[in-house]
């Protein structure tokens, strides 16, 4: 059970976001822009960054949600799991591999990204904006993962939930519109 009262029937981040709309609006807007806005990184590549950070932080809800979502963009779920387990051998482009390595380093340590990692990413074709956006996505999921587990939000009743959530995240994105009203 969550540490604070949240609307019932909304597991993980979904209940927390409904519990304080003043803070959830900018969190949702930032997420929508950085994960779904115009970008040279594909939506799937950005979901992989979200997944690898969530897995590194051992956040079960976020890892399942974003792995299920990433698996809608051209990888099988097994491939997604393998990528987040070891990005160095991942079936992704060199560029994305280096961005994933940077994201994992930052998840582990606030000062974890070295100049060498950035040089390697750039050599593999990453632009400054892509490096920026990778850093911001990884940072944002360090917020989300701590928020979700720090308040001990509920787990969904079954794994099917994550597929339904992935349906929404691949169509509506991260905006609140279309969300059913929360029931207390």
């Amino acid at each position: 059970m969550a540490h604070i009262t949240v609307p019932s029937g909304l597991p993980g981040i979904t209940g927390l976001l409904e519990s304080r709309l003043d803070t959830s609006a900018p969190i949702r807007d930032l997420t929508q822009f950085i994960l779904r806005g115009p970008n040279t990184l594909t939506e799937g590549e950005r979901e992989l960054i979200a997944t690898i950070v969530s897995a590194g932080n051992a956040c079960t809800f976020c890892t399942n949600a974003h792995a299920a979502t990433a698996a809608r963009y051209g990888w099988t779920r097994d491939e997604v799991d393998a990528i987040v387990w070891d990005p160095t051998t991942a079936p992704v482009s060199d560029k994305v591999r280096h961005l994933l390595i940077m994201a994992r380093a930052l998840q582990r340590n606030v000062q974890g990204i070295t100049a060498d990692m950035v040089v390697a990413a750039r050599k593999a074709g990453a632009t400054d904006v892509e490096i920026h956006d990778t850093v911001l996505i990884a940072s944002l999921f360090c917020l989300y993962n701590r928020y979700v587990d720090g308040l001990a939000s509920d787990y969904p009743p079954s794994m099917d939930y994550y597929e339904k959530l992935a349906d929404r995240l691949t169509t509506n994105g991260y905006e609140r519109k279309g969300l059913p009203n929360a029931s207390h």
Partner: protein
Amino acid sequence: MPHIDLPEGVPGIRGPMLYRPDTAQHMNELVSVLLHDEHTLSAGEREMIGAAVSRANECVYCSTIHASIAVHQLHAVEGARDLVESVLRDPLHAPVSDKLNALLVLALQVRKGGKEVTPEAVAHARSVGATDLEIHDAILIGASFCMFNRYVDGLATYTPDDPAVYDELGARRAAQGYRVGIT
């Protein structure tokens, strides 16, 4: 030197915020609600939570600027500068209220990881008067600074050495809040 081509000589988070303004407005809105807007916790208390988390994360820019904002928010409190300094140095033994001490415990637990927050620490916070909203916000401030600190240090942004820079910026932020944009 920053990892990417940020505007030169712009301190800390303001560099990437100028570089990618679409993201800046959302981050400024979040931090306004959490740290500046009307609240049952004073702005100074909330700034001290942010500064303490940033110090524990060893993010020099964020800990220094939020300590400065805290000092300016607490200007009416005698010895504000010493108080903020003691929170930075040893947050769990600083001379703050029992409630703020309990909220600092929660913010510093969540900094280490979401699962580090203990039910006992939450129950203790409640027993010394913390509301659900205050517990929520202490944890979200802790989590948010795990984002801001990584954004700032992950891009190796410019960290000024001169205390006067932080003092002047902190005074401005305390007076104007975070919604004014990056000036």
